[in-house]
């Protein structure tokens, strides 16, 4: 049973890393988004630094959601999803493995790169670590809520933008508490821990709900 779990995890990481896997696309998309925003708002660093966390969080959220529809769709198309269904491993654990692999290739790198992009929006020094913390804790929720949507899209064979559209409203709590935690670290009345702990709770909840929802969506596929 454990072998199957790690086999799925290892395979997804390998495919994302290989040429053609598109593993690094989320990172480039995140960089592109953060670079585009100042062109709209103007180069004034004082303005940018006030809304820095918001720009970075929105960029991370969109970068995670955009790549989600391929999560199960590619397995459905080449038939390896049937293989996973025929495994003794419960579908929930298979979804957990795929969600974890997705987070390791998108959410984690985004969080690690965000300090660099913080420079582009003049994020103050003391705001960098809290921002990375909120992203590290928040992006798993995005991956697993999105996994639910991706499973639905794969079973209905409707990829493309349906997943971000379906999933975006569900990620509103993550966005609210993520940005407010990141902002709280930079100033303002709210202490950092309050929104941050709520974000952790939401993330844990989302991982469970997303996994169960995705497994149900895959199981009921006709």
């Amino acid at each position, binding site marked *: 049973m454990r072998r199957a779990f790690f086999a799925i995890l290892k395979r997804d990481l390998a495919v994302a890393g290989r040429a053609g896997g598109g593993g690094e696309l989320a990172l480039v998309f995140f960089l592109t988004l953060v*670079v585009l925003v100042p062109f709209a708002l103007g180069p004034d660093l004082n303005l940018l630094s006030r809304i820095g966390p918001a720009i970075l969080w929105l960029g991370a959220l969109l970068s995670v959601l955009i790549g989600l529809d391929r999560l199960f769709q590619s397995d459905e198309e080449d038939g390896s999803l049937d293989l996973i269904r025929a495994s003794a491993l419960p579908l929930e654990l298979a979804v957990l493995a795929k969600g974890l692999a997705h987070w390791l290739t998108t959410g984690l790198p985004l969080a690690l790169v965000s300090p660099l992009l913080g420079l582009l929006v003049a994020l103050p020094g003391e705001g960098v670590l809290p921002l990375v913390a909120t992203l590290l804790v928040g992006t798993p929720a995005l991956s697993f809520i999105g996994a639910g949507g991706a499973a639905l899209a794969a079973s209905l064979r409707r990829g493309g933008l349906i997943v971000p559209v379906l999933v975006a409203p569900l990620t509103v709590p993550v966005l609210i508490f993520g940005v407010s935690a990141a902002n709280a670290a930079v100033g303002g009345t709210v202490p950092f821990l309050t929104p941050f702990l709520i974000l952790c709770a939401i993330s844990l909840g989302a991982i469970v709900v997303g996994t169960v929802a995705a497994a149900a969506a895959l199981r009921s596929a006709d």
Partner: protein
Amino acid sequence: MASLIDLANPTRFMRFSAALLPWLAAIAALLIAVGLYLAWFSAPADYQQGETIRIMFIHVPAAWLAMMFYSMMALSALGTLVWRHPLADVAQKAAAPIGACFALICLVSGALWGKPMWGTYWVWDARLTSVLVLLLIYLGIIALWRVLDDPSRAARAVAILTLVGFVNVPIIKFSVDWWNTLHQPASVLRMGGPTIHPSMLWPLLILAIGFTLFALALHMVAMRAEIMRRRVRTLTILEAERLDRLAAQGVPA
């Protein structure tokens, strides 16, 4: 089928590059060594920026090479689309990572130069911003090469993207300048006047040429690797089919 393997043109390039590479690398190393020595020991500190002016010796050649390599890629793209030169897309694919690295060096050295001078690592200065957008275009092209694994199909698509990018670079530069002056932030200090003192100019030129030759040598090695990668790919598929037929006829492979 036999002609597929020993393509005339790449073989001639392989022999030509094998002969030229040692010389190119040697001259490049020499020029860089001399340039660095002059830059560090003979060039005087700037009356205004003090020692930080020495960052210019890295920053300016890097910016120049980032632009030059992109123009080379645009030329290769024309080679692929218009003249159907078999090595054009090889040259284009090999140039992308090198150009991207120089764009990255330009940005980082610009930021490290900006901190002592403007007080922040990054400021949305028109030239730095344009190089940042250029880096994004580079990353897009490299990502496209990685996503499409079949070289022949990828060549045309990437060539078109490169040319579209090339046409846009001046437009981006113009719009960024306009965008920058429109929101003129107070704190930007004009970086480096037009007239550079000769004792600064010589190290800069030598280093620029040295880095250019070094980059061209790297580019040649990258092209050789790409040519061999494609031949390996073709031979592997042919070998698999050959062994397949032998296995089918019951002959032990």
